[in-house]
Every structure is written in C-alpha cells, then in structure tokens.
C-alpha cells in the first residue's frame, strides 16, 4: 500500500484551474521528483498535500486514510512535514533552538515549567549525527551555510518522525558543494524509510536522488516515470510541451 495516494485531484481558484485530474502515489522510503515549468501547478500540489487548502475535487489518502486537510497542522499530525523554500528558520536562535521551536522540551512542574536545554541540545545533536551533518546544535543559524540550514530544517522534520517530507526547491539558492550536502541529506532520509517529494528546477539534482519523476504541465500530469527509464532530454521535452505525453 502506498504511503501517499493522490486520487484524481483538481483545484480551481475561481476561474483559474490550477490542477486537473492529477493522480499519483508515493511509497514508503521512495524519493519522488516533482517537476514542471513555472505555473505548472507544482506549488499548488505541494500546498494541497501540506494542508494549506483542500482540493476542489479528489482526495489525498495517507496510509489508506482519506484526509481533508484545512490547515498545515492537520497534515503534520498525519506525518507530513514541509521544508519550505525560505526554510522558516529564526536567524537569531541556535540550531537546536530552531529544531525544537514550538515543540520545546520542558521540565519542572507548573507554574515553574522551564526549558530543558540540555535534553534539546543532546537530541538535536543526535539528529544531526543521524543525518551525518556537521551542524553543531549550539551554533547560531545566522552564521550557517545554505547546506547547514537545510540540515536544520530537515532535522526539524525528523524530530516529529515524519513519514513524508516535502522539499520545495531545496537546492535553488546554494553553492555546488552544499547541493551535494543536501542531496546526501535526502539519501539519509530515504535510508531511514522516510519518503521525500523533491520539487526542483534542477535536472541534475532530480536525476541524482529521485527514484521516480513526475512531470506536471498546465495543471495536468504528463509523465510518471522511473528515473532509470527516462532521460533529462525527455523530461525537458515533457516540461516544455515538445513531447506531449510519456
């Protein structure tokens, strides 16, 4: 049974039809690339799965359970985490503080409930070690590289034991060396049995880590292929519309 099953979803914003009858599934531990030109409906798809708004038609099925998300927190309860493009990190806090932001570990009894900083730093350290990232829990995020920031955001997703992590353009604005770092993070997630949906413009990245590639064009799914069974040229053709369907 698939972890995530998207069943003939359509989404309209007034007269604009952003998605039209899109179906696909993601298995546990699978890395799926979602590609498409600007306006193809990638962001809408991500927001639907992440629970920002419900679909006009169709259903999102998580672990065999049909879900009707209205708020991101409901999707998170089902084990779906989003690593946002702008990363949603607070620069003035440390890596550990960011990982636990909004989910702090506390000790003591009310009204003297205080932060258990040691426990949080230790747990964050374990998460970074698990991701094989060199990020140190006590370092300020302000001074971190793009790759390290991704590690913090992904560690946050790991903290809640997410089953599916949606990553929106994680490699868009970082250096080549850091891209390799982020792709390694994605592989680490996969090895832990976590599914990843990678939304990216960068063809090489998608071909490096993804098991399967889904292409959207003008709100419709035009391809859903194993990475091994396709080529960058074919995917480019599908994105631009030079190849109608595959």
């Amino acid at each position, binding site marked *: 049974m698939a972890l995530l099953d998207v069943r003939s979803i359509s989404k309209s914003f007034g007269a604009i039809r952003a998605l039209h009858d899109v179906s696909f599934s993601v298995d546990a531990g699978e890395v799926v690339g979602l590609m498409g030109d600007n306006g193809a409906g990638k962001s809408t798809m991500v927001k639907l799965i992440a629970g920002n708004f419900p679909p006009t038609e169709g259903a999102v099925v998580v672990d065999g359970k049909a879900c009707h998300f209205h708020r991101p927190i409901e999707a998170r309860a089902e084990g779906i985490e989003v690593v946002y493009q*702008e990363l949603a990190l607070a620069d003035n806090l440390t890596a550990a503080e960011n990982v636990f*932001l909004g989910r702090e570990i506390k000790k003591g009894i009310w009204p003297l409930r205080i932060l258990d900083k040691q426990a949080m730093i230790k747990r964050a*350290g374990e998460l970074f070690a698990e991701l094989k990232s060199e990020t140190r829990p006590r370092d300020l995020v302000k001074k971190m590289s793009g790759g390290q920031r991704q590690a913090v955001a992904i560690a946050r997703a790991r903290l809640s034991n997410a089953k599916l992590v949606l990553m929106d353009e994680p490699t868009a604005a970082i250096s080549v060396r850091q891209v390799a770092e982020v792709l390694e993070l994605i592989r680490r997630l996969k090895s832990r049995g976590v599914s990843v949906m990678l939304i990216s413009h960068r063809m090489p990245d998608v071909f490096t880590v993804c098991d399967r590639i889904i292409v959207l064009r003008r709100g419709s799914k035009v391809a859903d292929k194993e990475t091994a069974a396709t080529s960058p040229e074919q995917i480019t053709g599908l994105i631009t519309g030079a190849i109608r369907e595959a």
Partner: protein
Amino acid sequence: MKPSVAKAIEETHAAISDVVGVREQTTLQRLMASQAFWVAVALLALVVFMTWLEPTFGTADNATNVTRNFAPLAIMSLGMTVVIITGGIDLSVGSVMGLVAIVTGLLLTWHYSWYVAFAAGLLAGLACGAFNGFFVAYIGMPSFVVTLGMLSIARSLAVVISGNQMLYQFGPDAPIVRAIGQAKWPLHAPAGWAPRWIPEFSSHFWVMVILALILGAIFIFTAWARHLYAIGSNENAARLTGVPVDWIKFQAYVFSSFTASVASLLLLGYSGSAINAMGTGYELRVIAGTVIGGANLMGGYGTAFGAVIGSAFLEVIRNALLMAGIDSNWQGAFVGMFIVIAVLLGMQTSGTSLVATVREWVAWKRG
C-alpha cells in the same frame, strides 16, 4: 540496528558528545559582543570619572536620587524590551502613565481604599495594553500606528476624566499611598541600621530590581521568551512551526502597559498627587534607554539587563551634566548623540569592526 553497524557509526560519528559540547562563543566572548556589557562599562567609567571630578556626585544621597529617578524609566524599558523583541514598538507608554495616574487619583479623592484605587488604575492600564495588542496582533495593524493612536487616546482620556485638574486631596489612605511611593530601604541611623555609605534605595529601585530579575529569568528559562525572539527574527517561521504568534504578541503589549502602570503608581505615590501630564515624552526616553541597552528595533534582540543599564546610563548622563554645571538645555543633544552612538556600536555584534561598518555604510550609500 545491528551492534556492529552501530559501532561503526559510533566510530565515524563518535562525536555527538563532543559536538554537543561545542559552544560557538565562550561566555567571555559573548560578554564582549554584548552591547549591554559595554554600556555597563561606560556607565562605570562615567561614575568613577564624575566622582573624581565632583565629589558630591559619588555620595550615597546622590545615588539614592539617581536610582530613584531612573527606576520608573527602567521598569517601563523592561516592558518596552519585550515589545521591541517582537519587532514592534509601544509609543503609548507615557500616555498610559497619565491615564493610570488619573484613574487612581480620582478613586483616591473619592475616598476609596488604596488597593481598590491601585487595582482600578492597573486595570485601566491593562485595558490600554489589550487595545494595542488586539489591533497589532489579531488585526495585523502596524504597532507604530496603533500605539500612536493610543498615545493620543489615553492622554485625552486622562485630561477629560480629570477635568484638567491636578488631583492631590487623597482620602484617608493618602499616607499609605505616599508610603508606597516614598519608602526606602535600608535606612540610615537612627531609623535603621545601614551605615552612611550605603544609599537608601527607594521603593522604585527595588520594584525595578525585582521585575528585572523576574523578566531576566523568563528570558533565559521559558519557551515563551524563545518564541518572542523567534517572532522578532522571522514571524512567518514562528507561525509555520506552530508558535501561537498572535497570542504572544498580544501579551507583549499588555505587559508593556503593565510596566507603565506600575511606574505610574510609584510616581503617583512619590509625589502624592496625580496630574494628567504625567509621563509626557517618556515614551521616547524609554525607547532610547531600551535601544542603548542593546535591544534591536528590527526585532529579535534585547535583554532585561540591557533595559535597566540603558535607562541608568541615560539618567547618569543627565545627572552628570547637571553636576558638572552644564546648561540643562544641552541634555537633549548629549542624549541624542548617545542614542546614535549606541546603535552604531550595536551594529558590531556580528564581529566586524566599527571602521569596517562605517566603510560598508559609506560604500552602500554611494553604490
């Protein structure tokens, strides 16, 4: 995980405990990078210098006066710091003081007992804070606009309610009210045990110390404060991670008004009268003290210690200028200069030198 695999991971990545132990900055380095620390050093230097220049400056009596003068401002700076950390500003604190004083004064002249009058004054202040907080946090209006409106509203209400009269004929509880505002500890002989060289600290000072310690502990130990800093740095991020952003911002404005109310009640007790002009212009002095103490108007930075030390610094400069016999009309120029210098120094926290920052700025302006 199989033991051998676990062991292998441990060998290559044995460093969890090492990594966890690594601090980016030692305590000393953090101290050196903190604006509040340098302001404290400057304050100490100023005090030593003034004592040498003008022996009356260093007396216990003058210390009593100076600490009493800045305590109400420092108390309000604590509230202002909380608001400024969220990236907002509260311009209404001076007017809230006036309104609180008039509400309390009126009830006292109507012969209500002191605790009823104080509670009513406090409630009026908290209502102002709730108004600010509601429109900023839940309606999403800019804090500058909302609190500017409240600055006008609260002052106007104070004038209307008081009938533009000064209130001083307090009822039977007048001695208690005055005792609260004028109390000192420890007392010199013959009334007390303290030797001459210890200043008789005012109740204003002790209230400030207690509030600062409580707020300092909150900043260090609670999730609430951590959320406050996160909101100031990246409000969207805080919201996405499930922090109750609106509720926390609302509380920040209520707390700011609470500190203004406390300051107002202390000053009311000290002077034994209530005037509707109380606190006029205080908002700027409070913001100045907060900023000098290292709070960042863009949000995300600020400490309780900084709020107190910044306010103290401003007052000591005022007092020093007076003692040095400089025309009091110069005070504004000096205070203004120190605000600019303090913010300039505050831009150093990233570790670049002052010269580099200035050069960068000049280049940026030209570019």
